[in-house]
């Protein structure tokens, strides 16, 4: 079972964990991606995220379905934030339940690594003296 959300308000880690609860699971692993205050030594003031929403949802769903199959996950919740985020805010929360702990770590890592490669979400770093779309240029 899957729950996938793109939200423009603060993400609830507890909601993700509650969703992932399963009697058939012996582990829930949670990954939280947060907004860091610097990049390559430069101070970041905030981030602005945008998404191609219908495609972002469907690409996240593909990743989650693959994780269910590959790691035997029982339930997966993936919430991603859009809009303006301040330092320390959660940009993404992933909660995965599996029968045994090893697979829960592996599934979480697979999901976040793949999400960063395929899901159409973009972020712009805002600095004192300008702004940059992350990863846009080589």
């Amino acid at each position, binding site marked *: 079972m899957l729950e996938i959300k793109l939200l423009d308000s603060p993400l609830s880690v507890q909601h993700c964990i509650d969703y992932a609860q399963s009697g058939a699971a012996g582990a829930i692993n949670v990954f939280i991606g947060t907004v860091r205050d610097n990049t390559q030594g430069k101070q970041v003031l905030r981030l602005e995220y945008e998404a191609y929403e219908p*495609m972002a949802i469907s690409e996240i769903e593909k990743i989650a379905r693959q994780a269910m199959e590959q790691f035997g996950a029982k339930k997966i919740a993936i919430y991603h934030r859009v809009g303006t985020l301040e330092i320390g805010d959660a940009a993404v929360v992933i909660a995965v339940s599996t029968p045994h702990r090893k697979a829960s770590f592996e599934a979480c890592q697979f999901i976040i690594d793949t*999400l*960063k490669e*395929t899901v*159409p*979400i*973009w972020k712009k770093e805002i600095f004192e003296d300008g702004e940059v*779309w992350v*990863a846009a240029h080589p």
Partner: protein
Amino acid sequence: MKISILSFGIAKDITGHRFMDWSLGENTRLAELRTALEAQFPALIDLASLRLAVNSEYADGDVILRENDEVAIIPPVAGG
């Protein structure tokens, strides 16, 4: 025929528009549209990567475009 083009992230800064209407000949392949977009907006070529999606799915250059398709310009993604 007409399609719509969506631009996101830095691609929106480059094209200047979130939505564009675009006219094409019948049976235009996605690769031909890409060439036309890169000709009109050369800064797209400087990006670390550029993918196109048709109706919310990543698509290869040999896909044939149809009336009212929605093509999205996908610059390097940076979720998480």
